């Protein structure tokens, strides 16, 4: 319920959208699934991004580029999805909610509005976010992990997300009270195979810090190593050692640290289990 909202704008070009967003109390609107509903006494105007032509998806030589207004439902329908990390992105999108949500929630809105499984998968896959800004700097491309830094800036929009398309092996593990609940912890591991070894290891986790993070200590144990049991175990221990998880109704700090260990091990095992023989 918006108490103070005066204006609803649907600009047709990006520059105009950014100018509108520079006004005090103006906010971008994706699908609205998170923004509309709760009592909101701040928003003065909403800038609906659906007129900007950002509903596209495009395969480029090194990545899949998704416009910020692409819905998660349309994303699920893309045949390219299977090329990405053995389908892990599709699974994470599926976890983001029921069909009614996926039909409306957008890529851009989900990165801001809280879609933890999706954000974790994107982080593990090395996705980059392109932001449009009103100030002189114009467009910036940032890592998923830097997104938060820009969110606070006024007149900044997520324009698109680029997901590298390359042969990565992935594992995705989560623990929740019920299958459709938000996870207490979710871990997505992604890595490339080089003979018996793995490289470019990226392990991302939700539930171990206020936002999804990379488990760099675990990644380091695995980088350029053969993912045998002892190594995976060391990586799992390193993951648990590096985090100080927050506590909430889905899990205490202690339990989440334990899950960091178990789920890192399982996610890496699952990814390594997909290694082809050479």
């Amino acid at each position, binding site marked *: 319920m918006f108490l103070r909202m005066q204006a609803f704008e649907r600009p047709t070009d990006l520059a105009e959208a950014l100018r509108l967003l520079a006004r005090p109390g103006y906010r971008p609107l994706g699908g609205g699934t998170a923004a509309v509903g709760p009592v909101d006494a701040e928003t003065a105007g909403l800038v609906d991004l659906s007129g900007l032509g950002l509903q596209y998806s495009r395969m480029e030589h090194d990545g899949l580029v998704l416009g910020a207004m692409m819905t998660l439902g349309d994303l699920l329908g893309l045949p390219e999805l299977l090329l990405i990390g053995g389908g892990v992105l599709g699974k994470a999108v599926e976890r983001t909610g*029921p069909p009614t949500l996926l039909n409306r929630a957008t890529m851009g809105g989900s990165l801001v509005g809280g879609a933890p499984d999706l954000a974790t998968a994107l982080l593990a896959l090395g996705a980059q976010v392109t932001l449009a800004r009103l100030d002189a700097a114009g467009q910036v491309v940032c890592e998923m992990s830097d997104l938060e830094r820009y969110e606070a800036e006024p007149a900044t929009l997520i324009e698109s997300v680029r997901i590298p398309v390359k042969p990565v092996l992935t594992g995705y593990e989560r623990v929740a009270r019920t299958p459709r609940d938000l996870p207490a912890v979710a871990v997505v591991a992604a890595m490339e195979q080089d003979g018996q070894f793995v490289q470019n290891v990226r392990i991302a986790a939700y539930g171990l810090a206020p936002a999804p993070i990379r488990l760099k200590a675990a990644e380091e144990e695995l980088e350029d190593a053969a993912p045998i049991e002892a190594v995976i175990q060391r990586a799992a221990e390193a993951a648990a050692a590096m985090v100080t998880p927050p506590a909430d109704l889905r899990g205490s700090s202690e*339990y989440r640290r334990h899950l960091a260990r178990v789920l890192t091990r399982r996610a890496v095992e699952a990814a390594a289990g997909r290694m082809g023989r050479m």
Partner: protein
Amino acid sequence: MRIELKINGRRFTPEVAPQETLLTVLRREGFYSVKHGCDTGECGACTVLINGKPTTTCNLLAMQVAGAAVETVEGLEESGELHPLQERFAQTAAVQCGFCTPAMIMAAKALLDENPTPTEAEVRRALSSTICRCTGYKQPVEAVLRAAADLRGESAGAGAEPQPEGVTPAEGTGAGGGAPSHDPAAVLTRTPLKVVGKSVRKVDNNKLVTGRPAFTDDIEHRGMLHARLLLSPHAHALIKRIDASKARALPGVHAVLTHQDIPRVSFTTAGQTWPEPSPYDTRSLDNKVRFVGDRVAAVAAETPEIAEEALRLIEVEYELLPAIFDPEEALKPGAPIIHDEPDCTGIGGYDATKNIAAEIHAQVGNVEQGLAEADIVIQRTYKVPQVQQTPIETHICITRLDENNRLEVRTSTQVPFHVRRIIAPVLGLRPSQIRVIKPRIGGGFGVKQEILIEDIAGHLTLKTRRPVKLELTREEEFRASRSRHPQILRMRTGVKRDGTLTAHEMVVVANTGGYGSHALTVQSNTGSKAMALYNCPNIRFDCKTAYTNLPPAGAFRGYGGPQGFFAVECHLDEVANAVGMDPLAFRLKNCLKTGDIHPLAAALGEGREGFEQRIESCGLPECAEFGKTEIKWDDMHVPSGLTKRRGLGVAFAMHGTAIPGVDMGAASIKMNDDGSFNLLVGATDLGTGSDTIMAQLAAEVLGIKPEEVLVYSSDTDMTPFDTGAYASSTTYISGGAVVRAAEDVAGQIQAVAGAMLDVPADDLELRDGRVYANDGSSVTLSEVALRSLHQHDQHQIAAIASKMSYDSPPPFAATFADVEVDVETGEVQVKKLVMSVDAGRIVNPALALGQIEGGMTQALGYAVSEEMVYDEKGLMVNPNFRDYRVFLADEMPEIVAHLVETADPFGPYGVKAVAEIPMDGVAPAVANAIYAATGVRMYEIPLTPERVWKALHQKE
């Protein structure tokens, strides 16, 4: 601004404000099928199709979809013909309260438009956007699959109601064990039944699948104001100063009420028979708040937004008092006193100076002596959480003054007659100055056996002389309505090596929160149900119910049973284990049998003296046999994986059927010119299908089809009194009244027909809409009606009858669970649940199975995921469906519901209750299965991953 929408193929150009949701606009345009159950896209009740895709509309601005094509359930009917989806939902108990039904149908339509041959998993995924609190999803999923076949042109006989499997009819005695004092065969075969025992279509389903305006909110009054409540942000505080002048000055605000503006009248919100056995500890508005969410002030304004804005302008200065949340702490000397005001009264051990809302002691035999005789004594402590009913329709009422200046209260309640009587003194009116209308209800489960908003709306209407609508938001429903009492249960049981119980003791500390509604009776039910299922010469039940500063508990389906059975059924599993017996065999050895005397009924009434009960029917052996086979009990020691371990568990349960000597229902029947009948009942159908059951019972007696019975329920001006829909009483009590009234009417019909056919009235039989003489001659019911109303000795064929009972024949159930435990993470996956229930004679199997499936699903939430969680200041941190987890269609384990029919001599045609017992057995069966899987006992629910992991971890 004007936008264009194509709704169900027609062009609309509504004027919309920028902040208005599509839900608001669609309802304003008259599309009442689009329901409101939350504001955050989480319940799914507001789902429509936008350009062919299902979408929630409470979190969608109308402006966002300007120009779009919208489809609602109203558009599905074609020239009076139901769409196959509507038809298939209508045929079964896929529709219970019907509040979620339009949304489910639309989600299914989108699926079938795209995929004519969906798998069950695909159907479940499509339906997963809608929370159904009533059905357990099984019948809706089946309805969609059947409709898909219809649309493909594959089904044969699409017309007839499918008769579900899952009823084992009574064979001869139908009851296990000893001898009943009556002849059950005689009860079951009194007459060959035509309508009773059939899964006839629900009488109200057509209006629900088409989304016609039937619910409280589906009505407009000119000049209606929107009310909102200001809720306390503090758990325990005095209101030092409250100033509403700024709020009153806001344009569009018509009234602001604080405790200074209304008379102070103590009452109980518990909708119970007079004199209510709950303390009178509540005021409409008070100068003290006792939980986060307690009412501070109320506003009525022209729009919901203005009302919300006004709330923010009310200035309140609180003096914070020490708050207490733990019931055991609350009972200690020196604890802050929650009800220190002088104008509180109560019964049943009530002592507000010690924070005691109720105290109960019941004993048979001598427990100390029994413990001394035992070979083994086991003593354990169990804990059960606070959980909420969460009907998808929240509390809502609309009040107005009618043309006679009487207060009309249209409200979603289970207890219309209690509402009228209880709010009258609070509003300074006589009951006769109030008319309470109960329209269709979108689920209740006990939380609407509580008078939570009608008084405030009434005050606001009396103040403004305008119609007022007060609806709780989902968040308010969580924070400020009612819940299941959390309890700490201490069990001590003595047993001989041969498995004979020598002593059985339960000591409970319950938490009623800030107010004591149902504090005595819920807790006495914990003892009288759970502690009475097993024969033992020495039984003790002691309980104290404490006031604390948590949101109040109250009535919730099961009413103390689920708490008690979690403790008893886990405990006896451990006892069986200690004496080396199979837990199922142990239960069958000790449980009540036909002919036994209920061990606690006389010692434990509901706030009054109890009445001795003899068990006249008990189908537990048959229930156990069915479940044992279905769950493959004898394979329970199959080896399971190293990290994922499988196990099976069992639990028994017993409930009651109505409160003996208390519950009363009445019905009146009147015959119409065409041979149809109006049946007026005070009973309230909260989605259980009781209107249909009433129609079936009347139709059975009158020899007609249920469609010929027009059921109306309920309206305090029109229908006879009924205590209301609670305590599993409707079929037994109100149904009993219907049968009596129908028998009276049948006699009057026979008298008229006898004169017409010139035969003695006694020789006439009512069947197939006619009255037959022995020689085969007959007259139609319409001819009888026309003669009696228009031609000879004119009179209205009509009757009114009541029923009350001192007997409360218990239903029984056996629940089995198959679970998998991940021993590294503690995650528990329930693979399969089987519940077999002896509910006496079954009037409508589809509806009864629907009750069991829905109850099992709520009980599954109680077992593994549902819990109201608070921060250290008593603020609930999960007041929404994202964080408070209710099971969705695609999360469900396989569920098997089953009925064992027995014959009981008391109820009409031998019925017993079915609605509450499914709540009792799931949690203990799952906990016992976890033990079977891992060797670890769980003493606290819900069985969340972390809780199970901790227990496993401690063992290591």
